[in-house]
């Protein structure tokens, strides 16, 4: 067992974990952060994407011990304390960018990183930027529209990109 100290969605946790425990398993099974989901076992689908020290990672490809000392943000940590949706969450709702919603947490977290790097992506840039996240329901068109709309909204807001 190895000790990890990790901050997840603003809460500090200290735990003893097996070195082989994946970050996504730690989030789901130990912390009850089940908003982040597992869609595959080969790091192809991206459903488990979270932010690790500000960069998006597939949390099935990171060991919990690698997150020691790090700050993790999941889809559960995006909305404001008053329940106000993050611009990406709002845009996904407004543009019907989800159907079953299983890929949505990872898609939003990947898009958040994309917009941090490129606040005004073109359609093609969004498509390439979220290439590592699979969706079986939407055909991606509304996701692309939502990500671009969120980019505009975030640029216009005082929070700025990366909120």
């Amino acid at each position, binding site marked *: 067992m190895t000790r990890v100290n990790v901050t997840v969605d603003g809460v500090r946790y200290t735990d003893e974990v097996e070195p082989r425990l994946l970050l996504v398993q730690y989030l789901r099974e130990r912390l009850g952060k089940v908003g982040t989901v597992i*869609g595959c076992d080969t790091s192809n689908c991206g459903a488990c994407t979270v932010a690790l020290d500000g960069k998006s990672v597939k949390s099935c490809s990171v060991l919990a011990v690698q997150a020691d000392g790090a700050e993790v943000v999941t889809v*559960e940590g995006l909305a404001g304390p008053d329940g106000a949706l993050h611009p990406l969450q709002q845009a996904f*709702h407004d543009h*019907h960018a989800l159907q*079953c919603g299983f890929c949505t947490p990872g898609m939003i977290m990947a898009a958040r990183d994309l917009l941090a790097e490129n606040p005004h992506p073109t359609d093609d840039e969004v498509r390439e930027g979220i290439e590592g996240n699979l969706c*079986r*329901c939407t055909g*991606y068109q509304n996701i692309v529209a939502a990500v671009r709309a969120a980019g505009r909204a975030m640029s216009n807001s005082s929070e700025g990109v990366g909120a």
Partner: protein
Amino acid sequence: MTTVEERPATEIGQARKRKEDRHLITGATTWTDNLTLPGMVHLAILRSPMAHARIGSVDVAPALERTGVIAAFSGRDFADSQGTIPCAWPVTPDMVNPGHPSLAVDTVNHVGEAVAVVVARDKAAAQDALEAIEVEYEPLPVVLDMEAAVAEGAAKVHAHTESNRSYTWAFSSGEAGTGEPIEDALRDAEVTVRRRFVQQRLIPAFMEPRSTVVQPVGDGFTMWSATQVPHILRTMLALTLGVPEHKVRVIAPDVGGGFGGKLQVTPEEVITALVARRLGKPAKYTETRSESLMSAHHGRDQIQDITITAQRDGTVTGLDVHLYADMGAYLRLVSPGVPVLGAFMFNAIYKFPAYRFVCEGIFTNKTPTDAYRGAGRPEATFAIERIMDELAHELGQDPLELRRKNWIRHEEFPFTTVCGLTYDSGNYEAATEQALQLIGWESLVAEREGRRASNDPVQLGLGISTFTEMCGLAPSRVLGSLDYAAGGWENAAIRVLATGKVEVVTGASAHGQGHETAWSQIVADQLGVPFEDVEVIHGDTQSSPKGLDTYGSRSLAVGGIAVVKASEKVVAKARRIAAHMLEADEDDLEFSGGKFSVKGVPGEGRTIQEIAFATFAAHDLPDGIEPSLDADATFDPENFSFPHGTHLCAIEVDTETGFARIRKYVCVDDIGTVINPLIVEGQVHGGLAQGIAQALYEEAVYDDDGNLTTGTFVDYLVPSAADLPSFVTGRTTSPSTTNPLGVKGVGEAGTIASTPAVVNAVVDALRPFGVTDVQMPCTPERIWRAIHEGAEKSDRAASGTVAYGGASTSSSDGSDGDQL
């Protein structure tokens, strides 16, 4: 004073944003795998590495020594209690169903079949202990090729059956009296075109892996499962396990997609129930993606031999269809019925005077097939739309003109087809005209001709698909005539609460389709209550006890109508109470905008909310009236609905690399009345993605030993955003005449229509090279080979014999089975 809000005149037709979204975008979800119960144990399943073998022995004892392991079982531990996975669709009286144990007992018949199960305190411990189980397999001959499987002297998948043929199902318009004999058409044909098309095996690949939690309750149990069909599952589990139905409760919480893939009673669900009941503890099983791809049912997988006959002027005279349909190793819930559903759709929108359909269902040592988005109808639509292009090519006619010449004209509806189905409404001319405008057909044709003339290395291909589908499954009497075990009705109940808020209970169990939003819009209009005041309850056999669930584009066209019928009963009840309150005759009341008023006296009136409270208080109701406005209704449709549309695809094919890129995709769908255009658009987009994926990307491939070589998302190519274009969508509206909303269904349209549009475009681009077919998926390698090996090779491709991938796939495009 109450203020009057700005509200649309009708909710139906509004692009309401979804009520479902908030918990999904904030991660406050209830996927089955999220569920933890006190004392819960975790399952891991040992799966067969052999496609076909006799099980010599299974020793689970070593697994029990591992840390955290509580129990372990093999098939023999449950041989007397596990029953057989049910097949609800015995398509012929003599259909052979070999039986389907959830845990293999004596033999394994496909790679991935469940052989043993380990129960442990956590999932990792269960998974770790699988390696300790010792299984002796005695290999048996592996049967993979459908035609070889039914050849004389073939090895058998199931030793106790006479052959690998499960059934032969036939329809003939001559015998049925719905048309002329096909024999006459074949004999008298001026032109005959024969083609063999291969519907490759696909995997539904819903994003949420299957997961099941079972909690023993008294002498029954509660099951949470990632299922499309909680109601069917409840009934089938009761029958399979011998537990009385009223002791079984099934809950479908948030379900992450299905596409037919979760229209099933799965071995994993049965195993979890068996273990939970045996141990008296709640148990959870969640599959990995690799397990899902190899053991959740697959779709498609047909060899289609199609013969079309016509007069020289292009008038079609007959269609003769022979299918080999791969059932895989076992029959699951509706495996045999899937290709039979297609039987009624090969003739499509065209006026064939003669038609014959013969389907042979065949066992192989592969994962069972069953419903996948469209289920039988995409296969049919592909075959007819492809061969219409081949006929046009043979006749030297324009493919669009050939279609126009033969399709049902809008003034001919209702039209009874050569299969005996009556299409109620449609306007193929209007949809086609709009689609041609949207894509700019004329200029694309000019560009194609220019590129051909200049031998441009990037050729342009234009593909057409003018399709229809039968949706709204289904009239119970029709299902009965097709030997399906259940009906096709749907149930809804409406509860009017004291404060005027409304609960709608629906038997249609949604998993991404937006029922909560759409049903709210319907009820808002029917009862005149605000959209926000409606709550939709579904997915739990305790709270929504009656239903037949969600598949076959049926929810709105059947379940939505049940909601309307229940609403009408609520209004009828409210009317009597309103008449009493207004001291008026019922017949003098009109109901509009949620308010009853006396005709001609619009100022005075009672709102539905006022009536709801008066009913709740029950102080002053008319004599003999029960104090309730609640009502339920069960709706059984009289007919299918028949959405249709025209899909056009412009594709650029790089003839040097074989890479095909969709330049523009336009679809105009006629799905009748639209409840919510936002949801409809989403359904169309997602459907297109799956249909295009069949044309260009996806294929479940088995090697010679029966191993699924596309067993992860590394190899099974579910397209990403970068692989798909933006779609241009349009609509025409020919309301259905067989239901009060005029709705038809949209869940499968995009998938059914798009595959042939894309492949027709690919072949069109390659016509100058003499190419007449490219087998799906049209990968760069297959396209490149077709170009370089030309007509001679591609004709052989069309006459290939093998519908599975790996080495044998290459033999079906005419090569020797060593390249692909």
